[in-house]
Each structure stands twice: as C-alpha cells, then as structure tokens.
C-alpha cells in the first residue's frame, strides 16, 4: 500500500539521543544502530563500525510520523505540489509515510489513474507514499468506484475527502462493499445544506464579522449518521478532520458501544479557534473551519483520552495568487506537513496541555493503525523509521523554510519550538538539517 523510489538502504548509528517509543515502552539514552535499513542494535556505546554517525546528544529519537491526510495535488495541480515536493516536505516534517487524498483532477477513481500515481511514486517519492481512491466515481456521490479492483491495484483506502457521501443509501452500499476490500473507508462529514456558502464557524465571531456561518451541527449531524450506518452494518470507518465537540462526543459514544471507528484531528484545529479569523488572513480558511474554544478543548480531550487516535495534517497546498485575495474569495485549505510537530509541541506539549508521549503516538502509531499500515517502531529487527527532534530549538517560520511548492501556512511569521533534525524513512536518511 506504500510506494517509494528504490533507494540504497543505509548503515547509520544515531548516538546518545534520548530514545522514546511510548508504544514499545522505551525511554532511555541509547545508541541506535541501523544496518542495511533495519534497526540492528539498541544499546550504549555501540560500535559504529564504518557506519554514518549522527550525533544525537541532547536530542530526542522517536518513531517517525505517519500523515494519513495529505493533498499532493497530483495529477492536475502540479504547480501547487507534486509527489517529489510533497514527499520532500513530509520528510522535513519528520514523516516516514504519508497517504494522499484522491480529490485531484482527474479524481483517483480508476486503476489506471492510480497506476500512474504509483509509477510516479516509484520514480520520485522521497519517502513511501500511499494513495487513497475515491468512494464514488468522480467524487460525484452517485456511483461507487470499482473498489475491489482499486484495492488490488494498491489503493490504501477509500474516501471522497472534500465532499461528503451525501446520500445515506449510497453510504450504506459503500460500507457494505468496502468490506470486501479490506481497506478503511474515510469520511469527510459535512451536511452541505447546512454548511452552504459557509466561510467560517458559525458563532459570535462570524456574527460580528458578517461571514456566512458553517455551523458545527453541519459536521456532527453527518458524523452521527455515518456512525449509525457503521454500527448497523458492523463495518469500520475513519472520520477525517473532526472539528466540533458534538462530533467528538458522538465518536466517544460509538466507540464505547463497540463501533470500530477511528477519528482524526488536524494541528490547526488543535491549536487555533475562530477568534483567529478576525485577522481575515486567508491562510486561516479551511474546511472544516476553526471552531470555538469549547470545540478546541473537546478535541484536545478526545486526543488525550484516546477517542481521537490520529493526527493528520490535511496538508492542502494552494497557489499564492489563489490565496492572495479577500478571505471570502480564497479556497479552503492550509499546509501543514513541515510544521505539524513544531506547532503541536509549541501549542500543546510545551505549555503542558498534553504530554509528549501522546503527541508522538497520535502522529505515528495511531495513523498507521487506522489504515493498517506498518507501525514505525523502535525495536531490533524493525525497519528504520525514525525522527530525530530538537525540542529546545526555537525558530521563526518563513516562506523560505518550506520544501512544499506552496506557502499557505497559518504559521508564517510565528516563532515555534521543536525542530526536526533528521528523518530516517524506510531505512534511508530522507532528511537532515
């Protein structure tokens, strides 16, 4: 399900870092030796042989991150992102694997389109990348794609992200038929008759600024519907980019009742509220929108108690000229691959709102499990998927720092803490700084 360029596996020793893998139960100052792309030894004062040595003193070595929600804009808008630039950005963000969304032009709804993407990934991907395929043809919400064939061709899962599957009858069929593929169905929950023309969260800020509101019930109503269908069909599903407290509550309840549902949240929904929109910065416009303080609190609570197990960036690159317009005219979406860890470390871990272990787990194991991908693990014998982090580095985010082809980041100009020093993905040093 993951595809990348065939590159030489490396021999590396990371020396003297604090090695932290919350799932494996490791937290110690250790050397980690990678032989031919796999973790060969953990210990103190390991022999470096003739391996490449990365000094880890004062740094943190953790399982690399997995981003299950990336828009690579390929095919169709390669001016905004392509597989090479998107995976390079991911490597710089500490990711060892990403999943790309199928809402491209054309939509990834046939084995032929999927095949060409896999071929391109083999040629140019800096880190392994998987591709989700559409649930409905052309994401038009009318007819199912040939899901079994797509899965056989390598689809990592199915989603109409950007659009809901509006008709409940079709949603039910997707869950039923999806079961034969063994792949996860991921849903963008939005009742569009409630969110129509919505520019931002409906509340006191939208009332004052005059923006058409996108109420939280437009999301939670669809979340409730999809969870009800999943419960009825006894099928798993994944809920993309949750933003409303009612959605978190519904997911918590469904999981308690045994529904096999996973939930995702983005860095920007965890860090910001709709108050930020007062600046009218188009780089704060996204779907779902930033919501109120109580929504943000509920998302953080959900992340902490395990209701939400996945952090996905919803990295959505947009051309500069398309964002350099009044807020109302701007497209939805912000970038996130290169800033996810730093933003969350700065806004949540450093102030003591969540612990580092939770953040690391939700950015790595959580997303991998939701889609059945190999889990990055620090253990002898495991493929080397490692991120080396400098938790004390403080720096300002500017356009020049991005490897992505687009710079529509909500963090431009902000000073953050926590820097990725190196990323080892699938046994290869994919990034170092």
């Amino acid at each position, binding site marked *: 399900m993951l595809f990348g360029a065939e590159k030489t596996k490396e021999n590396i020793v990371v020396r003297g870092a604090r090695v932290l893998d919350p799932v494996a139960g490791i937290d110690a100052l250790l050397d980690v030796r990678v032989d031919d792309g796999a973790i060969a030894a953990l210990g103190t004062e390991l022999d470096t042989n003739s391996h490449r040595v990365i000094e880890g003193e004062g740094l943190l070595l953790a399982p690399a991150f997995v981003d299950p929600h990336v828009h690579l804009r390929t095919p169709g808008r390669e001016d905004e992102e392509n597989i090479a630039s998107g995976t390079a950005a991911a490597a710089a963000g500490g990711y060892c694997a990403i999943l790309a969304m199928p809402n491209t032009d054309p939509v990834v709804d046939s084995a032929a389109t999927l095949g060409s993407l896999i071929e391109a990934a083999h040629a140019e991907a800096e880190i392994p990348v998987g591709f989700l395929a559409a649930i409905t043809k052309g994401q038009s919400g009318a007819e199912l794609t040939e899901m079994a064939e797509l899965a056989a061709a390598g689809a990592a899962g199915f989603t109409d992200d950007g659009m809901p599957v509006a008709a409940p009858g079709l949603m039910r069929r997707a869950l039923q038929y999806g079961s034969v593929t063994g792949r996860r169905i991921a849903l963008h929950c939005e009742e569009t008759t409630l969110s*129509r*023309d919505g*520019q931002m969260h*409906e*509340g*006191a800020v*939208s*009332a*004052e*600024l*005059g*923006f*058409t*509101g996108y*109420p939280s019930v437009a999301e939670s109503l669809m979340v409730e519907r999809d969870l009800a269908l999943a419960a009825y069909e006894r099928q798993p599903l994944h809920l993309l980019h949750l933003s409303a407290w009612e959605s978190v509550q519904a997911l918590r309840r469904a999981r308690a009742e045994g529904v096999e549902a996973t939930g995702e949240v983005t860095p920007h929904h965890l860090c910001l509220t709709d108050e930020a929109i007062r600046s*009218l910065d*188009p780089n704060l416009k996204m779907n779902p929108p930033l919501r109120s303080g109580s929504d943000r609190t509920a998302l953080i609570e959900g992340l902490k108690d395990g209701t939400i197990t996945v952090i996905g960036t919803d990295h959505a690159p947009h051309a500069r*000229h398309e964002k*350099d*317009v*009044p*807020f*109302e*005219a701007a497209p939805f979406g912000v970038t996130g691959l290169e800033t996810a860890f730093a933003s969350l470390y700065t806004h949540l871990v450093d102030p003591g709102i969540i612990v580092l272990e939770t953040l690391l787990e939700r950015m790595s194991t959580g997303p991998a499990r939701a889609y059945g991908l190999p889990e990055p693990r620090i253990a002898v014998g495991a493929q080397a998927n490692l991120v080396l982090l400098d938790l004390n580095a403080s720096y300002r985010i500017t356009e020049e720092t991005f490897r992505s082809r687009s710079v529509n980041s909500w963090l431009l100009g902000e000073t953050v803490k926590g820097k990725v020093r190196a990323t080892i993905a699938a046994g290869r040093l994919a990034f170092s700084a």
Partner: protein
Amino acid sequence: MADIRVMREDLRPPATPPRRHFISIKDITRDDIERLLATARTFERSLEREVKKLPTLKGRLVINVFYESSTRTSSSFELAAKRLSADTMSIKSSGSSVDKGESLKDTAITLGAYDPDVIVIRHPQIGAPQLVARVTEAHVVNAGDGKHQHPTQALLDLYTMREALGRLEGLHVAIVGDVLHSRVARSLIQALALVGAHVTLVGPPALLPREIEEMGCEATTEIGTIAGADVVYILRMQRERMQEGANYVPSLREYTTRWGVTPERLRPGQKVMHPGPMNRGVEIDPRVADHADALIETQVRAGLVTRMAVLYDLLTNGPIEVKTESVLEVA
C-alpha cells in the same frame, strides 16, 4: 536674484501624517468618533456658504473603486473629495479590467502606481479593503465590504441622530430587519456601543445571526419592542444577497405583515432612519418614509459632510478649524 515665493501656510497641503485607514469601526475609539463628528459639523457650516469648495486637500488624489452598485455612497465620496479640492477618479468594476478577470490585488497595484493619497473601496467580499491596504501605499477607506463593515455609514448615522436628538449617550435605537446580511447593522451596533447608546435588534429568527448578542446588544423577534426606542432604524431586505431556496422568510409578504414598519407600530415623535435604497411597502411603509419624523434625507446630507471629515481626518491627522478668510480668497 530670483524671487523666493513662500507658499502661505494655509495653502500648503498638510504634512503627511503616518498612514491610517478607516476600515472598521472596531479600529477606532470614542474620541475618534467625537473628533470626526465635530469636523463634519465644521464642514456643514462651510457648505452653507455660497462658494462651497475648500482648498484643504488641493493636490491630493482620491480614487473611488466600486465593485458593487451604489448611488449614495459613491456620489457622496466623490463630491466630498471635490468639495475639498482633491483630484478624484472613479473606477467601476463593469467596464474596467475587472471584466477581463483582473484580480483585486492586481487592480489595486495598478491604481497604486498613480500614488493616490486615498483609495475608497466598495467590494462584495469581506476583507477586500485590508488587501488594498496591504498592496498599496494609500490610506484606505472602506465604503462597504460584503456583509462585514460600512463604517462611514455608521458615522453619518451617528451624526444624523445627534443633530436630530441632541445626544447619543443613552439613546435607545431599535434596528429592524435583515441583520444577517447587513454591514450597515454591524458597523452601527459597534458605533452605538462606543458612544454609549443602547441597541435592540428586531427581525425574523433566521435573519438575526446566532450569538449576535455578543456584540453588546439585545435581539428579539418581537416587532412590538420598537415602540420603546428613540430611533427606529430600518434595514433594507437584501434580496440580492439571499440565495434561491434559502427560506430565511417564507415570503416578503409575510415579512411585511410581521416586521414591516408602519405608522401603527410607531409612537409619535419617534425618529425613523433607513440607509437606503428603500423597498417601499416591504420593510418600510410609504407613510413612514414620507413622514416628518423620517430622517432619511438628512442622512444623505450627513453622508457628504461626514465623508469630507473622514478624508480630511485621514490626510491631516486631526481637526483644525476651517479658515474662512483663506477659503474665500482662493475659491
């Protein structure tokens, strides 16, 4: 030796102050409002003279850019600039490069190349004035951006209320109708809060934005409450902003029956205002519009002097008395 001619102080354009804008009522203080209203009153007196032109902004360039149709606002800004002797240019979206798909940013940069002192902009999208302020060196005046703000309208409304009632502090103003789509209402609620007036919003449930009370006003669907107000401010039903099938109200007929302002719903002596253009027979009964207590025409006249005050204030950074002698000399 050549004659050195020193320009007289009162003929010299005022020194360039730091760049300021007038984009949202949120950006200004009560002191700013008082100063602007006082300046407007000075200009009103100057307009009573036979020759109405003042030399104050001679040599300045004011560009009016209107992306939406407008009679009152565009004409009063143009006349305000002319009365202050500024050069003016008016750009409308139709017939300009906007028709050819030029972006707002590129249009603004193009106009900015003429070094305008002020760009007055009306645009259907929230945030357009901020964008113009970002990419040009001009002072930017918001003449209406989408449903967000229309700050000079709020200012002229305060001016009108004070002229008619002698005070602003403690006034009770009922704003009736389509608050949801109204930039006029948003600016006015904030401006009235700044000067210590009390606001009640009245309208159909779907046209009163959720949590609007957070702006410091009350909201009710009960039309009877307008009887308790000093001023009844009637908003236009903005049919052009309502999408097909949105069903904010079942029909205009039902709106009029339930929320139309009629003589029967008013108390004698209550002042009535409307930002125009009016839908007579919809939100406002013709008998109300034409009654002596309606200040609608006064609002239009106030629009001219308050916009003169805004242009003047932005370019001179503060009030000075208009010097009568020099005015007569140069005019």
